[in-house]
């Protein structure tokens, strides 16, 4: 289990490659990467604020719960804060499990909880001003999937 919160960029390919090797009993590895997306063509950059201390606590809790629930062989979370340009990687998660169903579900679980339970806030800087990204009801609703089972 590896949790990293950092302002520096990370190399998704190198991280994914390193994560996927060396787990003899993991037949399945899933990775997710979140990238700064420009929907309107006007985004100049994104600034991510976080709550140092609580961020790490929250991510560790989420990773620990996923690891237990799906018997993961390993999991990784990297999340950046600070200034990001369009096309830059914001974050990634990776999961390793014996079978694909567990690896997929655990990665989705990590993302759903990270999205609504880890203290990060995105601000968009466009040509016409700045604005905090609003949370989506569907993100909160996504958590319901994991309590019903």
């Amino acid at each position, binding site marked *: 289990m590896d949790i990293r919160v950092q302002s520096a960029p990370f190399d998704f390919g190198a991280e994914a490659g390193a994560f996927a090797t060396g787990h003899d009993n993991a037949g399945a590895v899933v990775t997710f990467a979140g990238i700064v997306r420009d929907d309107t063509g006007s985004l100049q950059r994104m600034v991510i604020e976080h709550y140092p201390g609580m961020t790490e606590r929250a991510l560790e809790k989420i990773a620990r719960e996923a690891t237990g629930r799906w018997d993961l062989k390993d999991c990784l979370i990297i999340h950046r804060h600070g200034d990001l340009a369009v096309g830059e990687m914001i974050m990634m998660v990776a999961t390793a499990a014996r079978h694909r169903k567990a690896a997929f579900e655990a990665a989705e679980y990590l993302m759903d909880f990270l*999205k609504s339970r880890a203290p990060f*806030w*995105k601000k968009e800087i466009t040509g016409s001003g700045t604005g905090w990204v609003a*949370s989506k009801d569907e993100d909160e609703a996504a958590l319901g999937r994991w309590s019903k089972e």
Partner: protein
Amino acid sequence: MVEILYFAWVRERIGLPREQVETNAATVADLVEELRAREERYAAAFADLSALRVALDQDLADFDASLDGVREVAFFPPMTGG
């Protein structure tokens, strides 16, 4: 004495990232009432609690949670990471 932290637009609206506050508030809701009464910028930031989240000593909590023994209170909007 508690340390209060503000993040994202709550921080911007209040104009401070953190401050130390002398309070006898029993719950988060009581503390919010005290802050609202201070100045317009606090009243504006705390106008709609459904748009806010609170963490006590770095764990998410409810607004009716007790402040007993709590050293750090943080107010912020719903998270938007990932």
